[in-house]
């Protein structure tokens, strides 16, 4: 009897508290800017572009992407000669915003993480490269980002894409990647199929 009463009160309370744990969000496509506002630059100088992920919660969902114009012209974001690389500014150590270190890559003010022009870690505590955004050109001259992906590089320097994990969590630690999936399950974004770089 006591157990039944406890259950009637305890189960709803627990479920209410823990419900957000299983939530996943969907990334809604966002307009970043006109294509010609992201000029190519001989040195590494990506352009910062702000966006709001959820217009209903503008105060808590602003984001910043760094758009690097590679000077090439392919509008397929997965191609080797893709026109843009769109980096997330979220440091993969613990989520602070990184800044561009012109000509070098990116640097994080919080704990000194550094990245090269590919977003690969070169120094400090981050455990994986910067996330990237899937992008596309809409209406012939608008750059939109349509999905966020976590990335890593294989031995040949080829980009591998993974479902998004929060900062500080590995996408592919040494050893079988099942470890990454069991120890750090992907619980953030509701994705489609994971893309493959060409």
């Amino acid at each position: 009897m006591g157990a039944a009463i406890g259950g009637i009160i305890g189960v709803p309370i627990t479920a209410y508290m823990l419900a957000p744990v299983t939530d996943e969000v969907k990334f809604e496509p966002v307009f970043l800017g006109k294509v010609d506002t992201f000029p190519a630059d001989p040195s590494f100088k990506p352009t910062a572009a702000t966006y709001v992920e959820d217009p209903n919660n503008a105060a808590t969902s602003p984001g910043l992407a760094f758009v690097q114009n590679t000077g090439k012209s392919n509008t397929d974001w997965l191609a080797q000669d893709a026109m843009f690389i769109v980096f997330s500014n979220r440091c993969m150590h613990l989520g602070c915003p990184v800044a561009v270190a012109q000509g070098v890559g990116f640097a994080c003010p919080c704990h000194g993480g550094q990245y090269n022009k590919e977003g690969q870690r070169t120094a400090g505590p981050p455990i994986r490269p910067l996330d990237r955004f899937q992008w596309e050109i809409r209406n012939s001259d608008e750059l939109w980002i349509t999905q966020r992906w976590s990335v890593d590089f294989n031995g040949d320097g080829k980009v591998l894409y993974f479902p998004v994990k929060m900062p500080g969590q590995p996408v592919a630690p040494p050893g079988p990647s099942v470890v990454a999936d069991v120890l750090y399950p992907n619980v953030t974004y509701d994705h489609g199929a994971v893309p493959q770089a060409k």
Partner: protein
Amino acid sequence: MPIPVPDAKQLVLQTEDWIEYRSGFPTLVRKFLFRKVPPTGWFHTLGSSLLTVFIIQALTGSLLAMSYDPSPNGAYESIRYITDQQTLGWLIRGMHKWGASMMVILLFLHMGRVFFYGAYKYPRELTWLTGSLIFLSTMAMGLTGYLLVWDERAYWASVVAVNINGTAPVLGPFISKFLLAGPVFGAQTISRFYALHMLLIPGLIAGLIFVHLWLVVKLGVTPWPGRPIEHEEAVGD
């Protein structure tokens, strides 16, 4: 014959008797306040200092809650209102802010005193354990309170703190989402932190303090280490 008018002292004693007969509270208070204790020093005052700071935090916190708006759009503005415009708001907020640091500092000193006096040993293990829970809860108060200021530092410090939780294997990603009330920092995060900070955790701490104090009274105060214990002060009164 005129009715005798009781003097003030009689009146107090009669009222006390009246309450005593119906509740027993005066005896309880007397037993709590007038206990036999071994010779003590300043180090033994750290625990009651902590209790005092906790009460100040609860009071000033309740006052701040009257003007605080736990929403992403209103939090910072309401803090500015409290600090800049409300009568003595700067003082109340300052007391709460500095009291928070003071509570953590006193907690470490109190814990150090208990440790170096060996006061955690038999029969006071449970006192130490409940104290440890109060310690963890106080840390959680510090974490959840930090976000409520809702300025850049508060926001990014909380992002980092949540992501630190996320790096724990297996449970980490879920703990992060529990704290954020969703997969990313959102509108519900601040109200969740607020509810934890001003209702759940303080309630927990108050309950733990009650148990902690009960054990202190029941088991008595630990004397200086190495000091011979006389019989009548060994355990309680």
